[in-house]
């Protein structure tokens, strides 16, 4: 069955009325069943992009088709097709968890009893059955994210948008949400997520677009992006016998054991570069698969003893730094904290 491309975005541009140019010519596509990520710092244009896709914001220019529907011509059809967990979790603090989800179900066209049943199902899925009758306002940050995720799933959407689903959460809650998302994606749900957490992008997303200052700086699978930085690095510490020239870091005349090792490994086709210093080899490989056992065998067969070996992989941090020229500064959520503080003071003012 030819299902429509879940997300098609071309030259998307958004300038806010007060002049901020939030999105400046973004293009990307998301395939059915894909787990796609928009990775970038605060203010990069991630949330704006997602809100436009979800019909909450009007674009300035460009083409946006979501679930086969044009965002200008048929926003109502898009709303029926998607689930959206927003960054500013829009919960009803004075309603109980189950009342909140039941109303969501009704608003998405379920009958009352059906909505109640679905609410129970989802509370179970996100592990909130015990607190179903408590007011949402009393939930912890992690619980709020979970019930918000549940509300986005109420109508079993085939396409799910998530705006920073785990920002500000403790590692345990984060892991729980990752596991739900992986399960959903495995079940066929197409997911588009924004994040500023490298680990999250790396673990969940099959494909990523790095977005900075409203533009896409790089796009590809986490693996491809990281391999652009250069390959994995294997660091080998040799067991250098007494008297060997490698002891003091001098590889005189290429006679020492380390120099011999460098010469040996360089001959391997998957090795792109190798060097040594004070008995430590640094070997950059194109493809880590099978490299470690082969290197060990090679050195051992030539009578070179290995004391220690470590593999390091370039991280998305390295990728981000390379393509944008700066660090992402994850965890800087001062903006949303201010919002929360304001909301709280408002609540105290009148409740």
């Amino acid at each position, binding site marked *: 069955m030819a299902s429509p491309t879940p997300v098609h975005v071309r030259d998307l541009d958004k300038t806010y009325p007060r002049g901020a140019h939030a999105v400046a010519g973004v293009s990307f596509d998301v395939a059915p069943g894909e787990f796609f990520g928009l990775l970038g710092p605060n203010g990069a244009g991630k949330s704006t992009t997602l809100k436009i896709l*979800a*019909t*909450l914001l*009007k674009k300035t220019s460009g083409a946006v088709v979501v679930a086969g529907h044009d965002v200008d011509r048929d926003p*109502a059809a898009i*709303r*029926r097709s998607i689930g*959206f967990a*927003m960054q*500013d*979790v*829009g*919960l*009803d*603090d*004075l*309603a109980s968890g189950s*009342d909140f989800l039941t*109303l*969501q179900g*009704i*608003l*998405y*066209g379920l009958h009352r009893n059906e909505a109640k049943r679905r609410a129970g199902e989802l509370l179970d899925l996100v592990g909130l059955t015990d607190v179903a009758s408590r007011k949402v306002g009393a939930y912890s940050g992690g619980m709020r994210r979970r019930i918000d995720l549940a*509300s986005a799933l109420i109508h079993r959407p085939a396409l799910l948008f998530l705006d920073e689903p785990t920002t500000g959460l403790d590692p345990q809650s984060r892991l729980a949400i990752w596991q739900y998302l992986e399960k959903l994606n495995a079940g066929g749900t197409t997911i588009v997520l924004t994040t500023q957490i490298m680990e999250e992008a790396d673990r969940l997303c099959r494909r990523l677009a790095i977005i900075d200052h409203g533009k896409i700086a790089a796009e590809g699978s986490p693996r491809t992006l990281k391999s652009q930085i250069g390959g994995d690095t294997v660091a080998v510490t040799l067991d250098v016998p007494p008297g060997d020239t490698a002891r003091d870091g001098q590889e005189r005349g290429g006679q020492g054991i380390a120099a011999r090792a460098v010469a040996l490994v360089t001959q391997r086709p998957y090795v792109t570069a190798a060097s040594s210093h004070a008995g430590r080899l640094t070997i950059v490989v194109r493809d880590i698969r099978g490299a470690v056992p082969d290197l060990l065998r090679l050195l051992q067969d030539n009578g070179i003893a290995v004391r220690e070996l470590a593999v390091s992989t370039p991280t998305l941090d390295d990728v981000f730094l390379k393509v944008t020229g700066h660090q992402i500064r994850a965890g800087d959520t001062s903006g949303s904290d201010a*919002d929360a503080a*304001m*909301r709280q003071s*408002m*609540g105290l*003012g*009148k*409740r």
Partner: protein
Amino acid sequence: MESWYIFRRNFRIWLGQPMLLIPNILLSIFIFIVFGSSFSASVDIPGFPTADYNDYFTPMILIQTLIFASGDAGYALLTDILSGYFDKLLLAPIHRFSILMGVLLMTAVRMLVMTGIMLIIAVIIGVQFQGGFLGILLIVLICATFGVAWSCISIIIALKTKSAQATQSAFVLFFPPIFLTTGFMPKELLPHWFQIAVTVNPVNYVLEAVRAITIVGWDWTPILQGVFILLGLTTVLMGLATWMFRRATA
């Protein structure tokens, strides 16, 4: 149908916040007693239409209570806008106007409750309603409609500013329409400039309709005048609120 469920949700939220209602009612009772007592001698002024000042003053208390309560609609909407719940409703595949309808339905219920409580207090104090039972029903209808229409002002401000301060401080705007009326004294006893202000204040016509039913009975001229102006006011304010809602959610 969606409006109904959104209303039900708003109603439940309102029930969970009794402190939105109680201070308002207490303030009205306070004003009723203090002003009603301090002006009680006015009935001896030649030309004053009633023998008991409370009979004359009751319509004023009703209008004042409703205007004071009219800020709650905007405040409730703003709370949802700031919490993000409003966006969540916009995201749902429903007719967007059902969100506004849900707010207005809730406002109507709130205004009915306020009017009912104040009328019961008036009856307890001994106010006689010359219009009888049907008159009281018409007063309830006029008051609830007026309360909903006037609440549109706070809804408009909330949608326009999306600011808690602006929505809260808008009540300052409510004082001239309340006090530049014949609520305390009949028009003939007011100074000339005040008479002009009273004539251009639409709220005064609504007030006079309610008062006519209370102290005279079925005196059709002020009643029809008041109802006519009330319908105009309702059309304009609801129209503006709808327009602002459309703009805010476009």
